[in-house]
């Protein structure tokens, strides 16, 4: 202290104005002398001034979110120092542009996602099916006699479905011709999804039109039991949560028989569809940020249906379907050192169908193993690289038990992909990817290049462009007949406009898709012949999506319109035609309104298209006719009397409109030279759904409160 009195405290003043590269003021910048408490923040005009007792050579630091850190060497002499810091823009992950061409992202716990599990359950027309809910999004078509996902003029096989990044084979339940199916997986499993209607990342292969990536829940937060009782069955889920791991076990029984005895059906059921499924899901944290998941789903289902033939007056053929299905997977993600991160896993799909029809006794086996390993490296905040290796083992067989014949194939596919993201600025991002693969069965190698670009016009508006090539092997039923078949391909070009602001979203997208090497054949399923691969075609169009959660209080609504112009030379056609599954005009409106006095959410959905094309052999030409417009008005009512109880009621096609999806014609003309026909319609005029969902838990926080 004695010494201290003799030291002269030389006070310096540091002042200036912080600007960006274009001279704009930057307020709120943290300014300080490195290693000291001396510092301040810039004001509204970017100006700042502070005093320090430090002397000599020092480092002045300027720090602000969204800008690169600036360090400036200064010499303090006890006088006033004027500095002119200029900050360069960095990449602000939160507000930076993202690639939105083709993509409908629905993820992240916090973000207002496009479709959450609760949306899927409460969209009246969806009947709790993921795909049913996705059909209210742009780029999709409702094909009521099929039930699968049809994207932009592509057939259902052109959409690949992934769970936690791993491929799922036979994701839809097995069904008979013209009897709609559903996704096998419950929407409650997933925290979010990524649905792409084209131009997607090089990470996804073997899909000509679309990729649907479903992500399972990471961490349930408490022990609970969920009981569901529905008009079509019942189920129970138990969740157990430990500090670093959790387990969920589910069992569901579905049987449409009781419902169908109550409500008149158009389909002639001998045994209504029934099914039993069980699921187990395990999650284990790995260190601070890693996660390991394992999931098994297994089910057994069946049905018996009489299907009449056109021109005949009896019940027709009895079709007996039995299905056994198992899907198992394990996946992990981990964050490594030096900005590396990793994810990957292995999945196994095993499907066994038994079909008894007339004299035919057929067993179809389909097995798929998918292994995947991906590494991502963030070199700088502007540049990252993702690379991966994937292997597929495909084993398919058809056993004609009635004839004592069988045929099968095995295929090994090796795929590598790499994809670079480069941010030119916070406003512009470029993504370039390559996917290379080889199939052992086809003995074919191929490369898919993909490029996308996004530019942020304004804070809440952006434009994206995506171009790419997509290859896909033909369906198994054809490959087993002709193993040397190679890929069909589609080239995509997509232009996307997206505007999101305060709960309103406007999305417009124009696309062009060019198909090559589509399959041509004669005959029907399991009896294909004359298989050739010189078909082709195109699909082009535009779609609009508007979602608004703010304009009307307690109301969430979205409006979708998709125009598709698709012409393709495929299947049994000898020329380019508009496929039956690609209506030109498609639209839907979904409105959900919450009434707190009734503790209820009311939902209305309406979807329509301009009709399905079909081929009428009584007239000249191919695909020469079109059905009447398809329209479906659905309503739903969800009542939440308590936080842990939901009672949900829904009715599809409230007006009972007789929707027709096409016509079946007799193969041979009758005596009058006329091919007789039967309409392909709905299973019932309306579908009624009533469900009671009860959650049982001992919530610790709730308990504590009750004890007060």
């Amino acid at each position, binding site marked *: 202290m004695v010494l201290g009195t003799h030291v002269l405290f030389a006070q310096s003043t540091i002042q200036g104005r912080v600007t960006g590269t274009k001279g704009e003021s930057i*307020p*709120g*910048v*943290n300014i*300080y002398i490195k*290693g*000291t*408490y001396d*510092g*301040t*923040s810039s*004001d*509204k005009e970017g100006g700042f001034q502070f005093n320090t007792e430090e002397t000599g050579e020092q480092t002045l630091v300027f*720090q602000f*979110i969204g800008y690169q850190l600036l360090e400036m060497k200064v010499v303090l002499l006890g006088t006033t120092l004027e500095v002119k810091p200029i900050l360069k823009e960095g990449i*602000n992950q*939160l*507000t930076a542009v993202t690639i939105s061409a083709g993509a409908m992202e629905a993820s992240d*716990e*916090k973000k*207002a*996602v496009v479709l*959450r599990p*609760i949306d899927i359950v409460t969209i009246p027309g969806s009947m709790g099916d993921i795909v049913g809910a996705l059909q209210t999004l742009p780029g999709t078509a409702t094909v009521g006699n099929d039930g699968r996902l049809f994207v932009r003029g592509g057939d259902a096989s052109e959409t690949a479905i992934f769970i936690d990044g791993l491929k799922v084979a036979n994701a839809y339940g097995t069904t008979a011709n013209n009897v709609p199916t559903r996704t096998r997986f419950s929407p409650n499993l997933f925290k979010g999804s990524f649905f792409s209607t084209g131009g997607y990342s090089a990470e996804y292969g073997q899909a000509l039109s679309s990729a649907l990536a479903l992500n399972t829940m990471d961490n349930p*937060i*408490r022990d609970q039991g969920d009981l569901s009782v529905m008009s079509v069955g019942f189920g129970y889920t138990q969740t157990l949560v430990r500090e670093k791991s959790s387990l969920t076990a589910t069992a569901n029984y579905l049987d449409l028989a009781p419902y169908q005895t109550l409500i008149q059906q158009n389909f002639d059921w001998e045994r209504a569809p029934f099914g039993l499924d069980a699921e187990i899901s395990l999650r284990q944290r790995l260190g601070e940020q890693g996660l390991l998941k394992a999931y098994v789903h297994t089910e057994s289902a069946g049905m018996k249906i009489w299907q009449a033939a056109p021109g005949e007056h009896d019940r027709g053929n009895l079709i007996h379907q039995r299905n056994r299905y198992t899907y198992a997977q394990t996946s992990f993600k981990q964050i490594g050192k030096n900005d590396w991160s990793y994810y990957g896993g292995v999945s196994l799909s095993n499907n066994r169908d038994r079909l008894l029809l007339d004299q035919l006794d057929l067993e179809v086996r389909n097995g798929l193993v998918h292994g995947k390993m991906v590494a991502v490296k963030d070199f700088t905040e502007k540049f990252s690289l993702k690379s991966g290796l994937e292997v597929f083992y495909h084993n398919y067989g058809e056993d004609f038990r009635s004839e004592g014949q069988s045929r099968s194939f095995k295929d090994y596919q090796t795929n590598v992909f790499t994809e670079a993201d480069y941010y030119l600025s916070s406003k512009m991002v470029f993504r370039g990817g390559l996917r290379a693969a080889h199939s052992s069965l086809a003995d074919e190698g191929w490369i898919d290049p993909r490029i996308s670009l996004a530019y942020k016009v304004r*804070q*809440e508006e952006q434009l994206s462009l995506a171009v790419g090539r997509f290859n896909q092997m033909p369906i198994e039923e054809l490959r087993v007949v002709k193993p040397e078949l190679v890929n069909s391909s589609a080239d995509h070009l997509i232009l996307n406009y997206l505007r999101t*602001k*305060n*709960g309103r979203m406007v999305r417009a997208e124009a696309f062009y898709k060019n198909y090559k090497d589509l399959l041509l054949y004669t005959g029907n399923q399991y009896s294909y012949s004359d298989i050739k691969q010189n078909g082709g075609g195109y699909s082009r169009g535009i779609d609009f999506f508007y979602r608004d*959660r703010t304009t009307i209080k*307690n109301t*969430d609504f979205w409006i979708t319109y998709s125009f598709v112009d698709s012409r393709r030379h495929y299947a049994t056609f000898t020329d380019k035609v508009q496929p039956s599954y690609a209506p030109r005009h498609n639209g839907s409106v979904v409105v959900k309104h*919450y009434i*707190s*006095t009734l*503790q209820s959410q009311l939902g209305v959905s309406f979807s329509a298209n301009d009709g399905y094309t079909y081929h009428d052999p009584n007239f000249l030409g191919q695909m020469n006719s079109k059905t009447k417009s398809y329209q479906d008005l659905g309503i739903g009512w969800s009542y*939440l*009397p*308590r*936080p842990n109880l939901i009672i949900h009621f829904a009715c599809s096609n409230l007006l009972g409109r007789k929707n027709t999806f096409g016509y079946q014609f007799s193969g041979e003309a009758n005596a009058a030279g006329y091919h007789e026909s039967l309409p392909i319609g709905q299973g019932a005029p309306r579908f009624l759904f009533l469900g009671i969902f009860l959650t049982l838990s001992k*919530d*610790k*926080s*709730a308990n*504590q*409160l009750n004890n*007060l």
Partner: protein
Amino acid sequence: MKKYGLLFVLLTLISMLGSASNEVYKEAMQREIVQLWQAATVSELQSAANAFTRISSLNPEEWLPPYYVAVAYAQMGFRSDESITVKDGYFSQAKEHIKKAARLSENNSEIIAVEGFIIMGELSLDPGARGQNLSPLAMQALGRAMELEPENPRAMIMMAQMELGTAQFFGQSPEKACRLAKISRDRFAKEASEVGKDSIYPTWGSVMAEQMTGSCP
């Protein structure tokens, strides 16, 4: 002996330097905590957040500086009148800093309460869309904070606010939530009488309790 003498001098010097730097830290914290609670605008809160960030970089082992950075950013999120994206940005900054605090001090009721507070902020930006996902997460964090420190009045008033929101959504009586708010108000009063004014440990939040009990029947 000579050796020990030198060691003694060294130790004394180190402890003197240590306590001196500790004093500087404490003074800086006290000064900035006053600034934080006087801040009326987003830019004043930004200055407070910056100041705590500076203190944190000099005292990387202390959990209180990043804790207050997080509180300042959370307040920015609540007070800002900018777009949802910007407000989300503040909450995400808050999250980053509270995680840092949580790494320095595990199972800390105050830190976990602020984690819950930040989730409440994110939820408030779009209750309709985010409620389903975020309200159980907020309740879980606050419940855990109360479990660790049953006397923590901040965790309690935040929980009371969540309870009130849930009761309103389901058309139930706010009685339970109000009872909790009143208990928290009493604990705030107790805390104020026990803890010195210049404590650098969290003592904030009584305004929330006053407001809520004021509007309770």
